[in-house]
């Protein structure tokens, strides 16, 4: 509650000093200047031996951002931790990156985590600013088979998703730019009668699936129902999507045609295109919230060979064991990733969206070599003199990542969200000191 009252006062202060600010006066409830949110995730941390700062500095991993003149749009927030003692952070801090809730282990067929920041923001924003897609999830690579038999109880779902709409409902990222293009801008071809027919055809298939699922659920034991319930929910969601319309956006780009079937092919291009589409979608008001996975948890397959030449996968490089060549590789990988962030920020800036957008960039670990989850490499990006952009914030003690998310809610006008995360990851209610 303390946080909330402080924010109300702050809004009053703004109104008093700028009494003619029409946008605020015109609305009963003051609307925040920041009304867009993007979270970007990279796995395996950075080169931060023993969870100290290591390469995570302005002239180290963040150099690509500085080189693009973005230093004053980026704030380094130190001392943050995330994760739960008994859960391997590869899984826990991927699924829990934006929820700070524990994952549930045991039956890999049933993935369960917590509702994530982006989904909370999306739901709230949708009540104020209508958007065709309350949130967009963007990624590049999926795991379809379980990675390590030694982690039998860990569902791969935890490595594939950072967005959770409900504890048992993840949202998969779109991996192919062409698919994202079709989703955002692709209208159906043909005459009205044919489009109507295609819609009715889809709807009748969905009706049938719903019927199948209901019948099946009635036969199976209780323990099986959640899986079918979530299947039915998905069917319903797709059905709702069919009847949504009325948003138009003319893309200023053509549909991507490059090969994106292999994660290492066109890796950088994939995300550059996705960024372009995301910024377009935000300009058109198609969406206000997005998450980006620059790689799935572990990212064993990603070699970054296009930029760095052939070499070991990301996960192998992260377990560097002090070997110089692996460390160099890991540092170079970090720069490719912060380079992606630089591309996103530049595109937002060019589109005049950076003022109204908050971007959180972070990872599941700091020192991937030993799976350390303290002093996580975390960035808060945006624009405005009210926040300490361009600086390094170092709270006096170790703080949960959820504290940053509470600040984020505040900055997006959600002053009632004063708590986040649970257990050892629960927010403290103390400010991080990110405000100027």
């Amino acid at each position, binding site marked *: 509650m303390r946080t909330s009252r402080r924010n109300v006062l702050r809004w009053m202060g703004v109104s008093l000093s700028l009494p003619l600010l029409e946008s605020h006066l015109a609305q009963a409830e003051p609307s925040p200047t920041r009304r867009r949110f993007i979270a970007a995730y990279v796995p395996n941390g950075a080169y931060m031996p023993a969870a100290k700062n290591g390469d995570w500095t302005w002239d180290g991993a963040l150099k690509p951002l500085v080189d693009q003149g973005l230093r004053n749009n980026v704030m380094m927030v130190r001392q943050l931790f995330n994760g739960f003692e008994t859960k391997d952070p590869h899984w826990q801090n991927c699924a829990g990156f934006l929820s700070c809730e524990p994952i549930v282990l045991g039956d890999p067929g049933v993935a369960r985590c917590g509702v994530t920041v982006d989904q909370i923001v999306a739901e709230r924003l949708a009540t104020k600013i209508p958007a065709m897609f309350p949130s967009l999830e963007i990624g590049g690579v*999926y795991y379809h088979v379980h990675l390590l038999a030694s982690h039998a109880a860990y569902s791969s779902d935890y490595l594939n998703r950072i967005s959770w709409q409900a504890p048992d409902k*993840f949202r998969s990222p779109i991996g192919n730019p062409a698919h994202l293009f079709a989703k955002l801008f692709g209208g159906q071809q043909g005459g009205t009668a044919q489009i109507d027919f295609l819609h009715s055809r889809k709807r009748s298939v969905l009706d049938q*699936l719903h019927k*199948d699922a209901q019948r099946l659920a009635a036969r199976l034991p209780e323990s099986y129902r959640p899986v079918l319930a979530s299947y039915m929910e998905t069917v319903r969601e797709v059905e709702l999507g069919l009847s949504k319309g009325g948003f138009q956006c003319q893309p200023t780009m053509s549909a991507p045609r490059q090969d994106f079937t292999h994660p290492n092919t066109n890796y950088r291009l994939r995300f550059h295109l996705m960024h372009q589409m995301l910024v377009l979608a935000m300009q058109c008001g198609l969406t206000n919230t997005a998450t980006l996975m620059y790689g799935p948890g572990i990212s064993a397959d990603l070699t970054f060979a296009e930029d760095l030449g052939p070499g070991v996968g990301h996960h192998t490089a992260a377990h560097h064991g002090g070997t110089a060549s692996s460390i160099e590789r890991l540092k170079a990988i970090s720069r490719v990733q912060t380079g992606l962030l630089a591309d996103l920020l530049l595109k937002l800036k060019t589109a005049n969206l950076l003022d109204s957008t908050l971007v959180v960039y972070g990872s599941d670990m700091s020192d991937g070599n030993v799976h350390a989850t303290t002093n996580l490499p975390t960035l808060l990006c945006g624009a405005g003199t009210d926040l300490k952009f361009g600086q390094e914030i170092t709270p006096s003690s170790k703080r949960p990542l959820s504290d940053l998310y509470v600040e984020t809610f505040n900055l997006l006008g959600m002053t009632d969200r004063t708590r986040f995360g649970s257990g050892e990851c629960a927010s403290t209610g103390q400010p991080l000191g990110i405000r100027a």
Partner: protein
Amino acid sequence: MASDVIGVPLEDALFQKWTPVAQVYGFDTMSETRIDAQGFEEQAATAEALAARALAIPSLSSHCPPLPPLEPPSCNVKSTYSSVEDFSNVQGKDCWSYLDSDGVPMIFDAANSWWKRNHPDQSPFIARTLFHPGASFSAVRRWTSPVDGLVTVSGEFVDTDPRGGDGVDVSILKNGNQMDFRTIPNGGNAVFSFKLTMDRGDRLDFIVNGKAFHGWDSTALTATLELKPFARKRTWTWANCSGALVGRVASRAFRRPLRPDEREDYRALYESTLARAAAAGIEEPVDEALSTTLQAVFLSPNFMFKPELVRGGFNPDEQSYGVASRLGLYFRGSVADEPLWAAAASGTLTSKTVVAHATRLANQDLPRFAANFGGQWLDFRDQRATHPLGEDMRREASDVFVTILREGLPAERLLSPGFTIVSGPLASLYGFSGVPTEATAARVASPSRGGVLSQAHFLARTGEGSEFRRPIHRGLWVLSRLLCRPLPQLDPATLMEIGNSFEALDRSRPLPEQMAKHRDTSTRCGACHNQIDPVGIALEKYDRVGRWRDFYEDGQAIESTLDFGGQSVRDPIELTSAIERSPEFRACVAEKLLTFALNRSPREDETCWKEKLTGPITAASPSPSPSPSSSLRTMSVEALVNALTLSEASP
């Protein structure tokens, strides 16, 4: 699996985003997983592609009425033809031709912009709108149907020159048979409107004849023809074709016959789609209705999930189909094959014949079982190449596994088969002589290679990365895959210690010495590393890609003094024989097989089956297997048969 359902091979790329092949306990044969809207969209697209593929398979529709031959349209297909607007100086353009009453094509007179006879008597002519008959010949405008279809003909003849003459006779003929005949008085007209079905190549002639006198007989024709081509499959109905086609695909997909209510649902879905598609002007409504119905089949939870693994999922009278499906999933990674299906249908799949079928499948589908079970257990299904010879290495692992199954060798031989199967380049990596460079799979007797622990596939995959990672990674792999030994979770305090220990290392010392220091830092570290390190360090005799070596690059000798389970394991040979002899290994093989068969981990109270599996096979189980005792293949049959009784007995 889908390729067995529809009966043609399908490329893997089609299933890149297919979710239900899930990830359970290290084996992804079949399971349940969640699917969200994004995943569903991708899956719906795959299902549509599958349906299209199914429709293209002739055998699936061999019971349907034969289709008319597929011919290209004989001229331009349009929905509307107009005698006036389509008029041109080219015969046959837009299906119109211009003839005299003998059927001889006219020639175009560019000066007058009309068609006339190539003959001294040029009196009949055909202009854009006007016709004019001649003294002994009349003029014929002919429209030839480009396809089979329904044609709606409407229009009007007008005698446009009332200054004289005695009027005209006009007629419309289909293939020479009169459809309409009128006599128009001078200055009069005749309106016509009718529908007729026409086959491809059928002719419709519009003719003007003079009566007694052909002067002042200029006659205007405005004819409009609306063509609705017939769908090729218009004779296919639910009853004579589509019902059986859907039933066949769906029963394979659901791994049991369709239930009456499902059959009725699909019929309704089919009929309503068919009607709507026809109304929307879709070219082949039957295809549309079929593909819609099949898409619903491929997206159904009955296909995506496996209810037969759960009590109540199948009806009591469907249980034999459930057993057939379990056999199919286990041995084929797919649906039951025809003999199994037939046995389930005839009710002859009893506990006795199950063993016979299992044994039959263990032989017949051995490569599939090897790829699905062995490939997931020992990682050789994973085709990510980490080395230029990666594919050759993977092939060795796979070929040796297949051979051990095929020759009925016991599971221990996975560790020391006494032979290996290598390509030329891989042979030279191992230092073998006598294998030609171009060989792809040469079987070579070898006391030291061929076993899982000496295969480059395992050694190179785990050999990547830092010097420290290699022995640890190799040790962990052996503990989890070959010994089923769980290790404690890493808690933050341990992680902190690991971090600190790295800083305390003296990197100028030999690796085993550094690891010993690491291990001895505390009991916490030792808890795991006392198990991991003896295995990993024994395997240091293999370099990062699997070549044998006695010295590190800096010249230091590679030696280990560590014990593993009370046995000296100084090198890979000692390690192999220690694992081979350990009951833990045999129990682990049994556990992996049971997990694969049950689609879940065996519970504590089920572990007695593990011991049963590792012992010699009981006399009660008939097995034509050539091996006298528990070969890996016999174990695989036993595991499945046991799993069937286990899951039946448990709630």
